[in-house]
């Protein structure tokens, strides 16, 4: 499969040539495939914010290339503009960028900038509002009267309305309570499945990542040390810990359980998997103890 989004030896240096010179990204090669749900993890200052701002052309690489659907996004002015629309970026705390009088107008800001006609804008606004579970009655309200969680969903709808092929979200659940978190995650999931869009989520929460992402990319010091299925990435518990990241709770519990002497595979990372693993271990013990075995 050809990647929909790709970086080739992407490097970015801030304040080059001054004493504050800082190499935020060093030769980063990253691929995202159509329909993939990709998780990016890294602590503050690891370079992940710099990375995602390159993916839709907000930042220009110091060296290296960013390709969207095979085309260099810096090849021409039009290519950069198109990249902004093909790759939607939802920033951290996006509710702070709302500015219009009504929710409807705010969501339509992106589609309008794309130069779409009224009917198409209307369709997109209503559809994206539906994706994030906002009822029609909210559309004519001021976004500033809504609750925190609702505001955030309006902001996400504002990006979804551009119908990007790749939707990137930076910490979309930061600061929300468990109900709010679940709501946002299921909104993203709905867009993902309905449009077969590529989703890239940046998060600190290993547990959340473990539950949602197909593939994880770890970024540390401007490089990508690990890239693979959650199970593979979480196998590097100690290295992740030293990067200030750690592994999901269930993985930790199972490592401990194994150390106690139980015959379990420690590569679980969600509660559901852990439950299955315990039940399987009990079953295996049941059959093996009939044969006189032990744990």
């Amino acid at each position: 499969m050809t990647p929909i989004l790709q970086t080739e030896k992407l490097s970015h240096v801030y304040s080059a040539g001054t004493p504050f010179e800082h190499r935020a990204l060093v030769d980063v090669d990253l691929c995202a495939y159509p329909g993939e749900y990709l998780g990016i993890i890294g602590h503050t200052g690891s370079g992940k914010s710099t990375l995602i701002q390159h993916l839709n052309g907000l930042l220009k690489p110091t060296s290296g290339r960013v390709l969207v659907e095979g085309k260099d996004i810096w090849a021409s002015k039009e290519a950069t503009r198109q990249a902004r629309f093909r790759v939607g970026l939802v920033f951290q705390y996006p509710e702070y960028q709302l500015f219009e009088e009504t929710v409807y107008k705010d969501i339509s800001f992106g589609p309008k900038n794309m130069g779409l006609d009224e009917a198409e804008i209307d369709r997109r606004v209503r559809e994206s509002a539906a994706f994030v579970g906002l009822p029609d009655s909210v559309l004519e309200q001021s976004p500033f009267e809504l609750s925190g969680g609702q505001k955030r969903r309006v902001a996400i709808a504002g990006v979804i309305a551009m119908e990007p092929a790749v939707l990137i979200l930076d910490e979309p659940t930061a600061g929300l309570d468990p109900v709010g978190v679940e709501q946002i995650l299921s909104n993203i999931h709905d867009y993902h499945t309905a449009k077969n869009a590529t989703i890239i989520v940046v998060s600190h929460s290993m547990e959340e990542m473990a539950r949602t992402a197909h593939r994880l990319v770890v970024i540390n010091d401007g490089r990508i040390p690990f890239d693979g299925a959650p199970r593979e990435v979480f196998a590097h518990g100690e290295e992740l810990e030293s990067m200030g990241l750690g592994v999901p709770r269930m993985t930790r519990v199972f490592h401990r359980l194994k150390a106690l002497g139980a015959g379990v595979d420690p590569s679980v990372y969600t509660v559901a998997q852990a439950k299955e693993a315990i039940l399987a271990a009990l079953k295996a013990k049941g059959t093996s103890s009939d044969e006189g075995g032990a744990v």
Partner: protein
Amino acid sequence: MALKDITLGQYFPGKTLLHRLDPRTKILLLVFYIVALFMAKNALGYGLLALTLVGAVLVSRVGFKAVLRGMKPVFFIVVFTAVLNLLYTPGQGEPLIAFWVIKIYWEGIRTAFFMVLRIMLLISCTFLLTYTTSPILLTDALEDLLGLLKKLRLPVHELAMMMSIALRFIPTLIEETDKIMSAQKARGADFETGNLLHRAQALIPLLVPLFISAFRRADELAVAMECRCYHGGEGRTRMRQLKYAGRDYIALLLGLALCVAVWCSNLLGVF
């Protein structure tokens, strides 16, 4: 990022003599310096003042780079002043260069040079003050020096507090502006092309969120300040007491001496 280049009010912590001088002394020295700067009429006077500044920058250890960086935002004003003076200073005798309507006299070059030097020295010494004095101390000092105005029932404490909070939030709001700008660009906003009207309109998606955020911050800050028992200037003490030390008296004497020296230099007809 252009926004991040603004160094206004940035403080470089340090322990040099210049850092340790009483902030009031530094403000007074700045006043002396500016007075001397406007008295200077010839190369000797300007030379003395330039040397003083070079010495002060060396003592402060903030580096010439930082001082020059402060010059960036006023670069055009400097160039503009230079060109104006160059072209419009009438001189006696033959013009050095005469081309079309342009006539440049020796006096023009001289005035332009001194004007540029004057602006640069003025800005440099002001920046040197903000580089070596923490904003809070600076406002404390201003509050103290303006103490006389308090007797005229001017809200000196409140003004000083406002100024220090404004300085505290400048970097935060600059960062925020950058962030909102990026977020709106990601939604296809265009801040760079189009005519003036277009560009002004394009600023709405930036300014509305910025204002809302500034008000929210102000609101939260007010509550946080109340929680820390802020109730105006009455009965307030200061951790750092402003106290003139021996070095302050010496510095002030030297400042006065500089003024006198520059004044005297005018009497000598050098250049």
